[in-house]
């Protein structure tokens, strides 16, 4: 390489020309972490999220729950790219108001679940980078849980773990709630107290292993009488 082609930075113009586009590029997405766990049972549904909002190794805030009560029988939990969470939930809230005024009734959890899938798929080629978990009580008073992928695939389950600790917690719930791979299976159905205990335990475990989960949890209890909430502290580090 002749000296005349060298720049003060120590690399040549020809190298620069062959280097292709510069790496630093705008990315519309970030991962702001957070976990959601939902459990459905006879006459109740529980949904919980942690309260940490972070980016990389920094914590934005220790007090940002990720639960959105949509009406008296449904709560949505969202985590992932926080700007998408904000935009998506505002859209859902507006659409639910329109529904309420047009039909003079609240949306059922099944209707919300279908609408959410449609909203997510409407952004199929520029997705909301969010993991959604919807919990509610259906017309029969049974708990229901719906889980989604970012582009709108919808699945109805009895329990689901989503967000940054989703992969960590789902097998734990499979074992503790569905009693998979167990020799002796309990006969009594899952009680609300037992479900609450499992949720608190799995969040404590998640906070130990996932840096994006911690600080505290907010737990919403949905029954036919409405929604109540509980909170608990988690690792604060």
């Amino acid at each position, binding site marked *: 390489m002749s000296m005349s082609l060298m720049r003060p930075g120590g690399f040549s113009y020809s190298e620069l020309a062959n280097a292709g586009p510069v790496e*630093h590029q705008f990315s*519309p997405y970030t991962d702001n972490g957070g976990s959601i766990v939902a459990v459905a049972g006879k006459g109740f549904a529980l949904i919980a999220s942690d309260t940490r909002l972070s980016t990389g190794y920094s914590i934005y805030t220790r007090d940002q729950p990720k639960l959105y009560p949509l009406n008296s029988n449904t709560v949505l939990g969202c985590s992932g790219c926080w700007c998408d969470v904000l935009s998506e939930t505002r859209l859902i809230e507006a659409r639910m108001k329109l529904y309420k005024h047009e039909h003079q009734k609240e949306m059922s959890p099944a209707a919300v679940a279908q609408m959410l899938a449609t909203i997510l798929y409407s952004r199929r080629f520029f997705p909301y980078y969010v993991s959604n978990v919807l919990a509610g009580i259906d017309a029969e008073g049974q708990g229901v849980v719906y889980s989604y992928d970012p582009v709108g695939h919808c699945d109805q389950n009895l329990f689901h773990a989503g967000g940054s600790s989703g992969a960590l917690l789902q097998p734990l719930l499979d074992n503790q709630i569905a009693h998979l791979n167990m020799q002796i299976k309990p006969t009594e159905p899952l009680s609300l107290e037992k479900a609450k205990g499992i949720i608190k335990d799995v969040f404590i475990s998640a906070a130990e292993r996932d840096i994006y989960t911690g600080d505290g949890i907010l737990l919403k209890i949905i029954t036919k009488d409405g929604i109540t909430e509980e909170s608990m502290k988690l690792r604060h580090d």
Partner: protein
Amino acid sequence: MANPQGLSFERFSTSIPAIPSAPALGPMKRTQTPVTTGTSVLGIRYEGGIVLAADTLASYGSLLRYRDCTRLHKVNDNTVIACMGDYADFQYLLSIIEQKAITEDCMDDGFNITARSLHSWLTRVLYNKRCKFDPLWTTFLVAGTDEDDDGQKKEFLGYVDKLGTAYTDPVIATGYGSMLATPVMREAVEAKTKNGGQLTEQDAIDIIKNCMTILYYRDARAHYRYEIAVVPTTGKARIEPPTEIKGDWQVAHLIKGYE
């Protein structure tokens, strides 16, 4: 009645001018990287108000290009914003925000833009631009006091960045400040408020001044001249005249091996 075109919120919009789109001449240009930039901004919420701080430097890469640029802006008597990132994008948004403030003022109905509503508005504008892959390369802190449903004045401190990521917290720092100043500020606030203690305006100012000094020593894009804004729940928001850090570099000659 359902809107046949789908959801439209346009009929709710007021006379605030729409953000003009890029000129149609030549290929469309998008901001891929910021140019003239400001570094960290800090904010603390105390019992009775909010304190914000930003230095007065607008850098051009490593060049200290403009050394007397204010990065704090008083929107009205109870709202102040601070900006990190591209200074041109800040000025562009400022021109729109100023027009919004004037429009509100002209209505003369006793209502003003609140910090909460401005924060929410910025969230939408910045999110919209990021969705067009044409971001306004800025991070804002919005501070203000606002009446809640009971007519009580409440302190508000919010963050919004170029993606539309938004949250509120008693302690916020952006950029290098989030690494160097946040731990110091959180610890200081925690120490003051534990056992039912209260953080006063002076406490908040002292913490912020300490953090601006730390940033000046370690952030190569920070400057010795900076401004502090105070937004109290009682009284009007004010931006204090710039103060200067008297650096103590006595230890500098002890550091060897980097000549």
